[in-house]
């Protein structure tokens, strides 16, 4: 949605806040609201009751270890159902409160019992393609593969927002990682819109894999920017270090949002996001 909406100057769209557990990240939820604010779009929460949990609860030996480790109980389908219902209600109220406070229209709070990815795919397919998917659950280091699966199996969305375990802020500079001049305009507009609601500065990080490409990209971007004086240009060459090193650079810049392109150098289509996401202190906003 973002690129297309921003490019087309449209003001409509939907943020699908995808929640699969009772413990979504505060930063992720706030980031989802900011995106909705920035693009004047609606927000809809999608709480997925994972079918696997019911399968698990059907085992007679299934037990649950509490988060404190101090309690253990036998699981049942009824118990899981009740717990999920209560968690969904609590989250719905939270999303409602956040949306109300930010003056963002709340389209609805959907609760479905399905496989999480399939539920998301259906939701996006029903009302696409101007969707941004916001993953409310923290992307744990071991879930890189899941993300790739998401990109591969879910369509009907234009961007994906996710947060890592260290995510702590949404305010600060909005950094758009530019790998190709083709992406400059839509990503710049998206960054400017985000900067409008997070009170941050817009920075363009020109990412290249060699000095010559870097120089070429710099020329192209400067040419395209003209006298766009508000934008600060940064350069990073991927051979300076792995994505974790790039994440450290971004952390030092106290970024509030990082905007990137899926399927490029920053986030390869089949690469591992683990190091980047594990180090980021701000939400990562990936565009297709």
């Amino acid at each position: 949605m973002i690129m297309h909406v921003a490019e087309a100057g449209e003001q409509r769209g939907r943020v699908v806040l995808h929640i699969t557990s009772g413990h979504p990240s505060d930063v992720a939820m706030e980031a989802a609201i900011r995106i909705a604010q920035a693009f004047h779009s609606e927000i809809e929460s999608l709480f997925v009751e994972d079918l696997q949990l019911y399968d698990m609860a059907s085992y007679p030996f299934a037990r649950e270890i509490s988060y404190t480790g101090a309690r253990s109980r036998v699981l049942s389908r009824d118990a899981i159902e009740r717990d999920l219902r209560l968690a969904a209600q609590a989250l719905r109220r939270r999303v409602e409160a956040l949306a109300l406070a930010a003056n963002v229209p709340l389209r609805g709070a959907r609760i479905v019992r399905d496989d999480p990815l399939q539920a998301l795919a259906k939701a996006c397919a029903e009302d696409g393609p101007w969707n941004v998917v916001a993953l409310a659950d923290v992307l744990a280091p071991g879930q890189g593969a899941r993300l790739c699966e998401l990109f591969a199996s879910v369509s009907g969305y234009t961007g994906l927002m996710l947060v890592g375990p260290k995510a702590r802020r949404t305010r600060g500079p909005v950094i758009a990682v530019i790998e190709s001049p083709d992406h400059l305009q839509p990503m710049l507009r998206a960054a400017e819109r985000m900067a409008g609601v997070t009170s941050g500065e817009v920075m363009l990080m020109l990412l290249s894999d060699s000095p010559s490409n870097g120089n070429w990209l710099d020329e192209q971007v400067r040419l395209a920017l003209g006298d766009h004086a508000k934008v600060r240009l940064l350069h990073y060459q991927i051979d300076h270090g792995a994505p974790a090193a790039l994440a450290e650079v971004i952390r030092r810049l106290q970024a509030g949002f990082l905007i990137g392109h899926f399927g490029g150098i920053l986030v390869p289509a089949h690469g591992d996001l683990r190091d980047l996401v594990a180090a980021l202190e701000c939400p990562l906003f990936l565009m297709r």
Partner: protein
Amino acid sequence: MAFWKSQSSKPAKSDQNASAEPTKGATAEANGLAAAATHTPLPISELRRAVDSAALGFKTTSELEPARGLIGQDRALKAIQFGANMASHDFNIFVLGPAASGKTTAVHQHLERKLKDLPTPPDWVYVNNFETPNRPRALKLPPGRARGLVKGMIGAIDELRNTLPAMFEGEDYQARRRAIDEEFRSGQEQAFESLNTKANSQNITILRTPTGFAMAPMHEGKIVKPEVFNTLPEAMRKQIEQRIEALQKELAEIIERMPKSDKQRRSKLSELNEEIASIAVHEAVDDLASAFSDQPDVLTYLDAVGRDLIRNVGLFLAPSGEENEIVKQPADTARDARFRRYMVNPMVSHNGDEPPIAPLVEELNPTYGNLIGRVEHIAQMGALVTDFLLIKPGALHKANGGYLMIDARKLLMSPFAWEALKRSIKAQEIRIEQPSEMAGLMATQSLDPEPIPFETKVVLLGDRELYYLLAAADPDFSRFFKVQADFDDSINRSTENDQAYARLIASIVMEHKLKPLDAPAVARVIEEGARLASDREKLSIEIGRIADLVREADYWAAQAGRSTTTRADVAQAIDEQIQRSDRLRDRSQETIERQIVLVDTTGAKVGQINGLAVLQLGDFSFGRPSRITARVRMGSGRVTDIEREANLGGALHTKGVMILWGFLAGRYALDVPLALAATLVFEQSYGGVDGDSASSTELYALLSALSEVPIKQSFAVTGSVNQWGEVQAIGGVNEKIEGFFDVCKARGLNGEQGVLIPRANVQHLMLREDVVEAVKAGKFAIHAVDTIDQGIEILTGIKAGTREDDGQFEDGSINRRVEEKLRSFAERGRAFARRSESGDGDSAAGSENGKTSS
């Protein structure tokens, strides 16, 4: 002073039996009476002591050097000086004196001059007590340094607001923090991930539920459906269950370790935070500590501040809720709720730029809070909360080390204030308590600030009644207010004091920026001063009233377009003052003129006389004549005071009437029973009567009734009398004379009219100019008498008579006739008694009753 308290103008039927005895009109000689010698009325010079304006020696007050302070108050000023110099805490001063006497200004000026001799008191501040926040600490500082501490603390916190976030966002801190985080987090994650890997290798998956973790068998990344699982061989199922059980135990152990690990992480982070914070805190506070290195208490406080800042460094890192959304700047440090605990509340502070001086404070509204200080509260979320910054100083704080002036009456009328002041004087400390706490009614959070030493000379100002009331009713009063500064309300009249008075007037002119008064105007003001003192030998020093007169005269001068205030302006001011207040006097005069209230001013009547009373209405008082009548008959020796019998007479009036009985018995009935029954009444008096100033008048009425000699109604009489028949001084003599004069004048002065006054009151005469003019023209007369005999001769024209060698009063004299009447009553009484004993009592009583004399 005796006066008639009130008088109703309600018309009433006159008692014809008592007052309308016909005058026979017979001459003294025809009745066998001896004519009295002529009594000379008082000369003009005795009626009013005028001031010779030419003798004052100036043309206008602009030539005079204004008087500094009060005149004629040496005794009071000496007392104030003594009290002010006496260092002891219990030698406080009570200044007694009439209202508007200028005592407040005088005390103020006097004490102001003494301030330079006093050491400058220290500054006091309240600061947070970090250990016991509800007991704020009081810090003493050298004069002028409190503001430095206040500003210094704000500056230090300001600095920390910038440096602390910068340090905590700095790379050094962040790197060390990340290292700590990573150390613990990676340990947890590694343990968790290794368990996850182990579970996956055994085809078991770990899933998050809303409230915890659970495990199930897995195949190709998905949970095996239970129905599929059940198709597996039992041994395999058992094996899987055992694996899951073992993994669950491992998971529980890992999770249980997390809190301990997190605690260690937090502890290490705390250490790091304190290390980083202490660098900035010491940097910020050290400058302040250096500035106050000579103040051990301040250093102790700054140490506590430093420790608290390091402990609460998070305050500086959390976003301010009070950031200005428009300019995106943080709110003032002094107004930021997060940093209130580090602010300093100055209770007493001197401006370092000005030469320090001890304070002189006059508290005009001495409520408890204004006096002792208060702990204010603010409403937050429906509850009243407070802190040490809401402690407000009272007058005791502001005046500490100097002088505090308080109006005693206002102080006593303010609940709890008097007790609180005494407590502060006794304990020599100012302890701020909520009045509700003292009454045991405290229902909200409050503070118990450390008391501040109290070293102030308290000066109470009040009237004499209040002083004596306090002295009698409160034993503490005499203990804590040992110095009595008694302001006189008048000074003696002399040429020197007339001059001093003129300079006093000049000071009023200067103070109020008025037009100068010429000498005749000053003379007129001095004369009014004597009039206000009710004594021509005295001058009132009620400065307030004199100042009012001078200011009003200035107004009339301005109305007349004059640049100098003249005698005519002063006279007009006096007239206007009277006119504004004399509505009731006019009404009273009107009732007499219309004969609603019966007062004769011509003719002569037996047993009837004009008495004089004074009515006081606020500042204005006026005289009013009233008819007094007496009737006599044979009886058992009792003078009935009808006022008393009707509960309208006061104690002093009753006393006066009883003295009459003593006089009658002592003079006329030494050897016979006083077989007299007499009734005395103030006719048409519907209010209370008090004072003994009419006792001589009543005696004249009685003597007239007994002697059956009529009294000239052209006279009015005032004066008290003793048992020897001596006429004694009374109060309000001028108003009384003028009251009767006004009635006579309204009816037409005939040259016969006049007033009898005690000779002792001649010195008080300061009569209106129109009265003096009438006397001068022979239309009115003032007679001064020493004795009842002199008075009765003037009133009747008949000789009073003295006892001759035969023991009898002169033949044809008043006294002779009185004595004979009383003897006849006694003889008849004896005869009546004999007849009663022989059984004829009833008829005798009937016949005696018919012989009542008037």
